């Protein structure tokens, strides 16, 4: 897998066939083949998912629950079957543990507004890592401020992995009620050692929330084996449409939490004096749910599992290994996060000399049709720690191939020539 040996071939999955399922990959960008390297921001959608949406609206669309006519029964079945599909995908004990939200951000806010408001008190500590996405950072910062508690940031090692000693000290010295941690960093790509973290936290009586927004789409995830308390992820990063996310927690925990949003569906009985709540999972789903989104997510999961999560992970690891290798050959390119592809997901953030990341991204796009992201990637605290105001980021998914990596590297050379 070296440049002199030429480009590796895709051994783990057949990207040519996969790419045919993604209509958008046929379009040109500024006259070039589209090289989409921003799946960490949002993934593209296969026609199978788009067909499922259309078929739902053309055949079975109705509001769910409480309707007794055929369409309503079909829509309800599809919606609840999607929940079962998600539950099985993540290894949940029952579908009641799967709460549909708008996205990962809402799932995390739900926990902060319900469990958090009830549990976090004066003097408590919420531990977050230094590489959290704003969505797993700001809700805790705000909650802590409201409850006279504090947010403490777990340091990183020089390799860009989590400093478990720092977490250990924190758990020892403070009254930590929650450890909020990303499964995979959306900047460093770091795969966090979740089972160590869960063991440490639980050993000190702290709960663990896993932000799995970058993990669920890219590797097998079993929430029962993981043993965390809350897991949040988002559909649009895993081939599903926008507007659907998931919160998972154990049934007993969800039972003990007060509801979040109030209105239709989430009630048992409403009188002018008082209201009682519906059973799980509906207690947490107020108003008309995004049935389309749930069906789309189930269809996306079907697609992913047909390819195989193990294959996807192996493919991305090979792409990242090749990309790390090729980028290392570009003078001035420096890479954030661990060097070892086994320690990282399909995300590579980098800088090239003193080329501003936005200029880099613009030139890659305009001159080569390469889509990468530039900025802080919703992780300003991390960038501040790294002493960077921005970085460039390429991220991979099952439809990317080794040619995409080559075009990326050629495009970076172009940018160097233009800006040099």
């Amino acid at each position: 897998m070296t440049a002199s040996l030429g480009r590796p071939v895709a051994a783990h999955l057949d990207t040519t066939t996969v790419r045919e399922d993604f209509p958008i990959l046929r379009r040109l960008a500024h006259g070039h083949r589209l090289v989409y390297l921003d799946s960490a921001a949002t993934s593209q959608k296969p026609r199978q998912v788009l067909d499922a949406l259309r078929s739902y609206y053309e055949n079975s669309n109705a509001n769910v629950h409480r309707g007794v006519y055929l369409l309503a029964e079909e829509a309800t079945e599809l919606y609840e079957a999607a929940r079962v599909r998600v539950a099985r995908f993540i290894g949940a004990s029952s579908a009641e543990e799967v709460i549909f939200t708008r996205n990962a951000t809402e799932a995390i806010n739900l926990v902060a507004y319900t469990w958090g408001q009830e549990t976090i008190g004066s003097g408590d500590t919420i531990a977050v890592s230094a590489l959290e996405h704003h969505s797993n950072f700001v809700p805790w910062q705000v909650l802590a401020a409201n409850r006279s508690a504090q947010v403490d940031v777990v340091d990183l090692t020089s390799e860009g992995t989590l400093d478990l000693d720092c977490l250990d000290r924190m758990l020892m010295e403070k009254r930590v009620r929650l450890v909020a941690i990303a499964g995979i960093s959306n900047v460093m790509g770091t795969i966090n050692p979740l089972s160590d973290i869960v063991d440490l936290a639980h050993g000190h009586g702290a709960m663990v929330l896993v932000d799995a927004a970058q993990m669920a789409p890219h590797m097998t995830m079993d929430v029962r084996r993981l043993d965390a308390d809350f897991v949040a992820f988002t559909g649009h990063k895993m081939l599903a449409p926008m507007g659907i996310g998931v919160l998972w927690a154990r049934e007993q925990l969800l039972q003990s939490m007060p509801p979040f949003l109030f209105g239709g569906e989430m009630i048992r009985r409403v009188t002018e004096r008082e209201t009682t709540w519906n059973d799980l999972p509906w207690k947490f789903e107020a108003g008309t749910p995004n049935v389309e989104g749930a069906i789309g997510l189930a269809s996306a999961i079907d697609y992913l599992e047909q390819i195989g999560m193990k294959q996807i992970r192996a493919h991305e690891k090979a792409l990242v290994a090749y990309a790390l290798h090729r980028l290392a050959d570009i003078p001035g390119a420096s890479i954030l996060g661990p060097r070892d592809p086994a320690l990282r997901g399909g995300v590579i953030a980098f800088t090239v000399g003193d080329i501003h990341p936005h200029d880099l991204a613009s030139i890659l796009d305009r001159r080569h049709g390469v889509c990468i992201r530039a900025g802080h990637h919703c992780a300003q605290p991390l960038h501040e720690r790294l002493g960077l105001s921005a970085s460039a980021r390429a991220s991979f998914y099952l439809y990317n191939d080794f040619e995409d990596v080559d075009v990326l590297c050629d495009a970076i050379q172009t940018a160097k020539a233009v800006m040099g």
Partner: protein
Amino acid sequence: MLHGVRRAPVPVYLLETSHPVRGGRGRELRPGRLESAVDDLYRELILDAYKNPRNRGRLEEPDASYEDENPLCGDVIRMDLEIRNGVIEAAKFSGHGCAISQASADLILERVKGQPVEVVLSLSREDVFEELGVESLTVSRVKCAMLPLKVLKAAAYGMQPSLKPG
């Protein structure tokens, strides 16, 4: 041995309609799976039990009573049982609800009258479907059909506190 009217702590119907996760890929929705060209629901059997119930009413001094609600519609079924030597000597249902729930209540009581209480505990969704003469029911109507059995079981469990639902 009189058990007052209470609400079930764990709604039995929910256990029965909860979504199994393990085992198999779950039901795929085949188009038309829920459709029936002829109405197999509002037929003689159900309509007759609904219009001419044989077991509607209250018992004066029941040995066990139970009442619960279908949260989807707010309808309530109550069951009164008279038990002698472990055998259901008399049984009546009351409350209000749709034809499916009322017919189900009537037919299921018809089945258990004169039987040992244990029989109640062994009744399943399939038995209810059999009594109603239907092969399946859609998600919303299955709750109507199962409410009476749920209430009946709760009343029977009340008779035998050692036989709590698993």
